[in-house]
């Protein structure tokens, strides 16, 4: 995935598209956009930094997973097999990008923060009590040659989840939800190993950087059109829960 910081408006449409497509509960941001400020008035600068899972080629989360639940597919996507995840949270500790979210609560409890009252009888008459009411059935599908349960599924209590690049969409030949919704096409998805893919074409000849490249994780999320945030960068406009920040 390429992310063009010369285009990003920091609007967080990608965050919301992800939340709807993948049915994540409150305080869980598989895709998150930092709004950052640096400098001193009036020499102030503001920047935006979308941060999905970096889908590293050398993923520290995979190395520490004791059950093989976290794995790196041949196509480059790093996924969690929810049937194998035991919720030890080693991946969460190992990842330097803060993209892992542990499900502390059952989905119906986690979604309660969204005040959607799925058991409301008038609503249940329409939705069958689904959690959330816009429940995406594709998340229950099995993916890959091994047919593993790697999309969001039911957001079970006690597992760790993160961005899947919308594997349930990618397998159908669709781009991830964040990419599709971006109003300014700041996100470009595709096969980095194919020199003719849209993402390779987009990146050609442009200055690039990867987040925390010095750690040797070799992310497959490549940023263009900006510079990495400096240690002076301050996050502004954090969400109400502060979770996006806490995981950063």
């Amino acid at each position, binding site marked *: 995935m390429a992310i063009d910081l010369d285009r990003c408006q920091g609007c967080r449409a990608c965050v919301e598209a992800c939340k709807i497509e993948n049915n994540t509960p409150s305080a869980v941001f598989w895709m998150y956009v930092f*709004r950052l400020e640096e400098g001193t008035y009036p020499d102030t600068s503001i920047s935006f930094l979308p941060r999905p899972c970096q889908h590293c080629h050398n993923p520290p989360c995979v190395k520490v997973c004791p059950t093989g639940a976290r794995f790196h597919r041949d196509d480059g996507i790093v996924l969690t097999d929810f049937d194998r995840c035991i919720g030890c949270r080693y991946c969460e500790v190992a990842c330097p990008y803060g993209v892992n979210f542990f499900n502390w609560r059952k989905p119906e409890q986690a979604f309660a923060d969204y005040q959607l009252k799925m058991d409301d009888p008038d609503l249940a008459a329409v939705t069958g009590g689904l959690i959330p009411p816009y429940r995406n059935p594709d998340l229950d599908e099995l993916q890959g040659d091994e047919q593993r349960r790697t999309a969001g599924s039911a957001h079970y209590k006690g597992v760790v989840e993160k961005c899947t690049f919308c594997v349930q969409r990618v397998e159908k030949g669709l781009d991830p939800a964040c990419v599709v919704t971006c*109003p300014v096409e700041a996100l470009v998805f595709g096969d980095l190993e194919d020199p003719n893919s849209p993402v390779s074409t987009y990146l050609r000849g442009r200055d690039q950087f990867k987040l925390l490249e010095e750690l040797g994780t070799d992310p497959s999320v490549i940023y263009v059109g900006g510079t990495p945030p400096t240690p002076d960068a301050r996050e502004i406009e954090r969400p109400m829960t502060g979770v996006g920040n806490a995981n950063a």
Partner: protein
Amino acid sequence: MVEISRRTFIKATAATGTTLAASKVLFETVDSVAQAEALTLAPTEDRVFTTCWIGKQDCGMSARRIDGRVVKFDGVDDHPRNRGTLCPKGQAQIASIYDPHRVKTPLVRTNAKGVPGEWRRASWDEALELVAAKYREVAADDPKLVLWQKGRSKAKSFYDKAFVKAIGATKLGHGAYCSDTGYRAIEYTVGLHGVLHPDLLNAKYVLSWGWNITNAGGNKFCWLTWPQQMVQAREQNGLKIVQIDPRLRPAGPFADEWVPIRPAGDLALALALCHELIRQGFLDRPYLTTYTNAPYLVGEDGLFLRETVGEGDEAEEVPLVWDEATRRAVPVTEATSPALEGEYTVGGQTAKTAFELFTEHVADATPEWAADKCDVAPDTIRRIATEYGTNARIGATTVVDGVEVPYRPVGIMAYHMAQQELGFPALRAMAIIPMLVGAWGAVGGQLADFTWKIHKNYAKFEDLKVEEPPYDFVLNKSKFFPINTGFPGIVARVMQDPAKYGVEKLPRMVILHMVNPVTSFASQADFLASYEKFEFVAVISPWMSETADLFADVVLPSATIEKYEGPLSAGDGYIDAKALRMPPMDPLFESRGEIDIYLDLTEKMGKLTGEGGYIEHLNKELKLAGTEFELPDGSRPDVRDIFDRWAKMEGLSGIDFFEQNGVWVKGPISPTKRYGYVTDPPFGGAVHRLYGESLLKAQRLQKEMGADEVYWRDYTPFPTWRTPTMEASPPEYDLYLISYKLVEHKQSRTSMVPLLTELSGHQRVEMNPATARRLGLKEGDEVTVESHHALTGETRRVKTVVRLTEGIRPDVVGMPHHFGMWTHPANKDAGPTPNTLYFTDEGYVGMTADAVFHVKVRVMKGGGAA
């Protein structure tokens, strides 16, 4: 996109074995066992087209449905306005469909008003009859005493205009809180119905004047289309953006230069830019002499010299100009070479051209003079004038689609910043900047609408009506506001003291359509006081608004996106298109679409059919009248059929065209419709008003009728600086409060979406760290913000917390809107609205009866001193 029919999709998916545990029948009447069994086998998937309901710009959406249940909205690729994308609000609005906290059934109040409501569920029939009965009672007195008020208009307002006309009510909108000051200034100055936007795709240099680029719309759009065009213009044309704003956050990384202007200094900056453009010789003389009143001769009385041309009924008083060819004053219609500058003796009196007077008017408006008022350095002002003037390429032309058009790739984007005390003169002055360089209607230059359509107000404003009291309660044609936007804040003042305003009859009932004055409008105190005076309040809304909670007698639940609305403009300013909002599901609970509600209401009121009835007005407003597609009078039409007839009248197959294609792309907007220079006639035939003669005439009438200075002082022929009222607050009120929009929100409906309130967080007062240090405050501190009314001494307070940012002037604090609500769990306890702090009476209202979002405040730690 092809809709997969239920039956064929079942066949296709049954074999895959993919099942959803909770798969069930939705909205379908199961009329056969066989069908019921088939439907439980597998979820059926389809897509239906609709249009975003949550924002203003009506982006095209496709709803992905499982068993008729919407699971996701996506943008429509062919829709010019959003091109397959959606903003965070567009994505998150799905939660509002399923919101169990919506008003589910009609409600009737069971307790006293003025305190949170207690309700009983009622049938639609009973609730409608209660509203209709009160209407009949009030209408028997005077139907104008029924007030109908709407918030952000969704879609062409044909159905509500028809409703208001059919029942004879008085109408108010929300524009006086939005940008209507700007609309009035541009209607007055160039005749277009809009504020200011550049021809963005062709612009090189844009003064982003309070344009909240990354959070809000500029002119006309609510957000997404402008950022798309801005990104394109930066990548393809090297567009440069100068952000003129007390805060940096609006432009963020897209500000090539940030000019942190002092709030309310805009008029001074604009006048100084005019001063500099004239001084530096950046003048498009052919444009100024041909298309503006700059060469008109102004006599010693401040009025144009005129001469009668023609005879009898054809006779017309035509302004004179100085014809350099014949060296005499001639009617402008006969001049071949009008002088732009100069002083002349005509008929024994001294006359100067309007341009000469303007040059004198801004002679003292030097950058140094303005710097004192707007706190922008004189050198910066001079440099921006030079950059603007140079980039304007005066004299250049270019060819667009085979048409040669002047090329002036400089523009101003300005919209909501118009809502300030001197907003009308400020926007007039800002409209004169492109006038000087001939950028109005040029390629890359200044626009205010997508086609060059002259608004009826242009002619109306030539002769401003100022009458003696008594006035209606909106104060139309009054000595107070000769130009009158229709300001709910002033109506709230009139209701508290009608005698002061020469008003004899006050509104007795109000029908509120998705509008929440108590929290969304300022001044909150005035709405709380005035709403107690309504005999009856009916609310049409999907949610229990705060206004409804305190004051409604009856609440009628309307649908969110699950309804028909339209026809909607779907163009992006370059491509013309139309679309409809169509229900992706049946309305949830017992809610109904607004058109259905108005059909129901007019039926109960006895105003549906017959002469002057709702159907007749629907036919007129949709231009179906007299065509073969006219709605037959006599019975209640089906709402889908109304749009089917409209689509057929437009030459389409019917509403099925939209159901199958999502959007009707009509094609590119011709340069001869878009650029004023090449429309027929040029600029729609409207002479651009550098000199506001009718403003001066209105002022004289106001004075004759004894209006106080506060009402007439800004009715001046040229935009004229004076110190804003708020500057007279005592020095301890040392900060300017400004308010702004967040990208997560649009009107109060987004505050009901928990996915969005999660992102926007709690209310805060943004403050520069230097200011916080001075006040002994730090990030997260609880504080009291206290506003002060410079004329009455009244103070108002809210409590909130400090958020520090280096992206704001040290003498300014900022608070976003979207807060202060209490009826919905998604926004309850999220902090106060800045509307509690604003004032909307004399000194804090624009000359055109418009809201002012500026006030001086102080910020005190904790609860503040007594």
